[in-house]
């Protein structure tokens, strides 16, 4: 009896290969059921996310990784080369890999938290389908414990690693909690959407969208549950805003010092955070000279995200230590007995 892990992810396979092996939510149960229906496979969990597809299985001694890989390729009707796309781990290495995955150490965005829930969901489905027994039950329970410990004992998930996340982090540094805060997005592109979404996820309640093309503003507003404002009227809204995100394609400054100066008294000089993610910039840098305005451009946000990524990478050694220690401590069949 041995534990094996076979999979492919964003580091080993291009998207056109990953999509061939990715499993939609509805197909997961069938795949797991089919996996454990073989006499040689005693237990199994199938994990499929946008960046990885992995099979964890407890197999009879004679069954090799190649057999498993062939079985998967056959099911996907994949006849192309698999050279270098798949990775495999056995016994302890497989256990450590699962812990890394659950901890977000193997994710495209290092330390991201979504993967933890995805692994949990994959395990739960296998458990409910009767596809797991003592080996995988113990292993996955341990991996969840390790994942939590890695996240609480290291800085692997600290700091924002995206421009949108960095914007939220800055807004929170100025306002604390964003519950009830008002946001205006100038421009209706992809970056505007991402940043508005990120702010909403942290509690921003009122989001206004303005754009030269009102239709685009209305579309984005509808998508994110906000309100579209005609471009000619955005200045009037400035008096009650907390956060302004500017991401238009305008070749000149859209927001100028006089726009803010005109509403300072009306705002009772409350802090205002302005995030300029456009190139060329939308907000005149002189706006940042106004006392209560905190202005950040794309370079600052990118720098913040890069630094956070660097800090997370520095935590990897510590995370590996935790994983090794926890696997050593555990009594896991087919791993360290």
């Amino acid at each position, binding site marked *: 009896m041995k534990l094996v892990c076979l999979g492919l992810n964003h580091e080993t396979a291009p998207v056109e290969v990953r999509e061939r092996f990715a499993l939609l939510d509805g197909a997961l149960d069938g795949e797991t059921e089919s996996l454990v229906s073989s006499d040689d496979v005693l237990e199994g969990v199938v994990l499929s996310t946008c960046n990885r597809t992995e099979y964890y299985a407890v197999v009879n001694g004679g069954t090799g990784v190649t057999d498993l890989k062939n079985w998967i390729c056959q099911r996907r009707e994949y006849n192309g080369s698999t050279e270098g796309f798949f990775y495999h781990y056995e016994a302890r290495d497989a256990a450590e890999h699962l812990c890394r995955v659950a901890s977000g150490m193997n994710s495209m965005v290092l330390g991201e938290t979504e993967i933890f829930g995805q692994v949990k969901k994959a395990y739960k489905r296998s458990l409910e389908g009767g596809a797991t027994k003592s080996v995988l039950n113990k292993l996955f329970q341990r991996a969840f414990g390790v994942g939590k410990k890695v996240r609480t004992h290291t800085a692997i998930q600290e700091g924002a690693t995206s421009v949108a996340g960095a914007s939220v982090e*800055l807004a929170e*540094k*100025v306002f*604390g909690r964003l519950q009830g805060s008002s946001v205006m997005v100038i421009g209706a592109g992809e970056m505007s959407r991402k940043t508005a979404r990120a702010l909403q996820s942290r509690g921003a309640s009122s989001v206004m969208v303005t754009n030269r093309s009102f239709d685009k503003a209305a579309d984005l507003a509808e998508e994110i549950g906000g309100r579209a404002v005609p471009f000619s009227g955005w200045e009037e809204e400035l008096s009650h805003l907390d956060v302004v995100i500017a991401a238009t394609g305008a070749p000149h400054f859209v927001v100028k010092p006089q726009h803010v100066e005109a509403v300072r008294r009306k*705002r*009772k*000089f409350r802090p205002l955070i302005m995030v300029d993610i456009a190139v060329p910039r939308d907000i005149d840098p002189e706006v940042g000279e106004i006392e209560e305005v*905190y202005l950040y451009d794309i370079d600052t946000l990118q720098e*913040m995200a890069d630094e956070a990524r660097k800090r997370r990478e520095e935590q990897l050694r510590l995370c590996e230590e935790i994983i090794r220690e926890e696997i050593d401590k555990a009594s896991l069949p087919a791993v360290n007995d």
Partner: protein
Amino acid sequence: MVMGISWVVIATVLAAAGGVVGVVALRSDKVGRRAALVCMALSFGAQLMALGWRGELRGQCPLGDLGEICLFMAWSLTLFYLVTGTTYRVSLLGVFTAPFVFLLQVISLIPGAFEKNVVSAESIDAWREAHTSLSVLSYGALALAAVAGVMFFVLNYQLKARKFGGGLVQGMPSISRLVQAMARIAVVGWVILTAGIIAGLLMPKGNFGIHLMVATITWVLYAVLLGVYFVRGLPGRQLATGLTVLFVLSLVVFAKL
């Protein structure tokens, strides 16, 4: 005397420990921050013991010499920090408060700051006692508002200059929270000062001194600053500047008197 002064020494050492532990714990060490808070709470206890010693000697509120005034103010500052620090979850305020408390207590430990041969008061004027104690108490709150102002300057500079690294900016409360804390603590101080001044006006005739006059001018200046902030609004930096300058100025004037 030896036993009494040792409480001041203990309070001073604990305040220093609170500051040092707090600074070391800035890099997101929550346990360390709690330890800093505990140090300040213990320092507060030692200050109470020291004030009790001086109060017993004087037979009245211990505000008769430089040592007692500094000690009373350190106690008042620590008291407001312990109350507001937990209310606003601005434990970092302790890191900024501790050095000031430490400094005040070091001044009180300078030889001669505490009068040696204290004569116990034969009679107590309740209004005078209330006036002096409430005035010094209010200065504790106003000092804390100024400390919050200093925190605002530090955070504002870091956010404006885009210096986001280090534990200091990470451990700070938000700009909005600091502005709110500054204003509210200053209001508490101003209300207590108002009570102190009213008590001063009720003192028997002949006791109206220059202290009361300066206290009244201070009260008016704080009233104007807070009035402008609440009615018209003020940028956080101007409020912080006003609170810090007013506090330092009034402290210097009182020290000269």
